[in-house]
């Protein structure tokens, strides 16, 4: 089982070429960080991310993951910045030396909205893009197959090695290994697990290298793909347009004096 958050859905967002989605994601991040107004980030969430989440039918999972990741960050951000912002002058509430200021809250809103936009867009990308398709698309565009292999195999082999660790632990327990309670007990239980796991991994690496070479991984032939990643002229146009949009987002506020 791969450690991936990908949700298999038949939606237009899923069908987009992964590179198109990646370019849009990067452009969205550039826009919200280049134009530091909270309403820009909020607008991107409302106009781009939420509709895309609805269309892709990943909204529920996006909301749950987003809340889990963002809630503690945003709460801490508002508390810290609201109470300690150096330029805070307009106090909304005071208690002893602590003062919650409008300036601090607005600063937190600016930073927080951008973080929310960045995290939600990234999660949506991961939910709607199969890692295998992403790596195939990137390899087609010249990314080293070895680099692609490192990412892809890491995603799949970590859970496989976790299963093996569970197996070793079970075998050790069957031979009388007692796992103590609490953090100390668990760390203690790790010790007899490490040697067989690590040594086994070294042997595996050697065997896996042999198996990969046997399947032509070291070949210098131009690689082909069994499952071509879908693409279209419209998507190519979008991909070429996005850098211009990102550049405009950086340059225009400076030229117009909006910042």
């Amino acid at each position, binding site marked *: 089982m*791969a450690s991936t958050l990908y949700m298999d859905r038949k939606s237009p967002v899923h069908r987009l070429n992964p590179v198109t989605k990646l370019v849009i994601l990067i452009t969205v991040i550039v826009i919200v960080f280049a134009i530091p107004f909270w309403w820009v980030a909020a607008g991107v969430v409302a106009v781009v991310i939420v509709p895309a989440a609805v269309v892709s039918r990943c909204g529920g999972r996006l909301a749950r993951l987003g809340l889990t990741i963002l809630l503690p960050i945003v709460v801490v951000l508002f508390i810290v910045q609201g109470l300690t912002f150096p330029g805070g002058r307009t106090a909304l509430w005071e208690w002893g030396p602590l003062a919650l200021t409008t300036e601090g809250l607005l600063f937190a809103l600016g930073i927080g909205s951008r973080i929310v936009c960045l995290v939600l867009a990234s999660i949506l990308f991961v939910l709607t893009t199969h890692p295998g398709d992403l790596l195939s698309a990137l390899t087609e565009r010249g990314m080293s197959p070895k680099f692609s*292999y490192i990412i892809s195999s890491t995603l*799949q082999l970590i859970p*496989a090695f976790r299963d093996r660790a569970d197996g070793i632990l079970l075998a050790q327990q069957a031979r009388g290994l007692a796992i103590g309670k609490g953090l100390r007990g668990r760390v203690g239980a790790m010790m007899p697990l490490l040697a067989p796991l690590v040594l086994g991994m070294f042997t595996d690496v050697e065997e896996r290298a042999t198996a990969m070479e*046997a*399947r032509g991984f070291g*070949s210098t032939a131009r690689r082909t793909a*069994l499952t071509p990643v879908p693409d279209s002229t419209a998507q190519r146009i979008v991909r070429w347009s996005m850098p211009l949009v990102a550049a405009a987002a950086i340059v225009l506020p400076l030229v117009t004096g909006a910042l």
Partner: protein
Amino acid sequence: MITLTDIGYAYPDAEHFALEKVDLHVEHGEILGVVGASGAGKTTLAKIIAGFIPHVDGGELTGTVVVDGADVAELSLSDAVSKVGLVIQNPFNQISGAKYTVRDEIAFGLENLGVPREEMVERVAAAADLLRISHLMDSSPYALSGGQQQLVAIASMVVLRTPVLVMDEPTSQLDPAGTRMVFDVLSALRDAGSTIVVLEHKVELLREHCDRVAVIAGETIVAVGEPREILADERMPEWGIGATRFTEAARAAAGRGVVAGGGTLPVSLDEAVAFFQEDVPA
């Protein structure tokens, strides 16, 4: 097709040779079974034939290995792997880890070699069909059982259509039905012109499917011959290889005086039936 002449090999930093004075010839379109006790050097022999020794493992190799008319030591590794497909013992490590479906996993080697897509589609479907794993094509390779992974690992090498296939215990994770099916596949590949070297402990299946059997013991090949002749050899226990259960039963029955014995010991069910019928009529 494969000729090993006076092969000797020592792993890097090893004091002793893992194999010594090995001479072996495998004909085109033949299945050669190789048996030997654990640690006898079967995997080493497989790697030598496939060119991984000395290209990958290093060490000291003496003698010559000629496969399909080419000296393997003089070939690059990628040229060697285009001649010899190697199925390793542990299917978990044969799975690339780079692909998310069995279909893409089987195609991985073809993609690396730049085979056109249309040809890949046909070859992947044919290999999956041969190994009877077509129903698993959309599954993740890591969601499969050990036996299913082994079939995928074999399919991923069969799909490369190398003239020589070396298989190191290809049925170690399979149940009896899966094991029999793999040997049927090997026979089909042989009939289609492949040359196969299979290193295996299941001696009864070697008798049934191999054209010849070689025995490794004491770091060298001590016997090569017809499966029947090798499996009935009295030195099998001495070489660290158990005889077939039919041979053992006949030998035990003769030892306890149940049957007269003295004749040729059986190595298959049919022979065992005939053997006991002679002495113990119904």
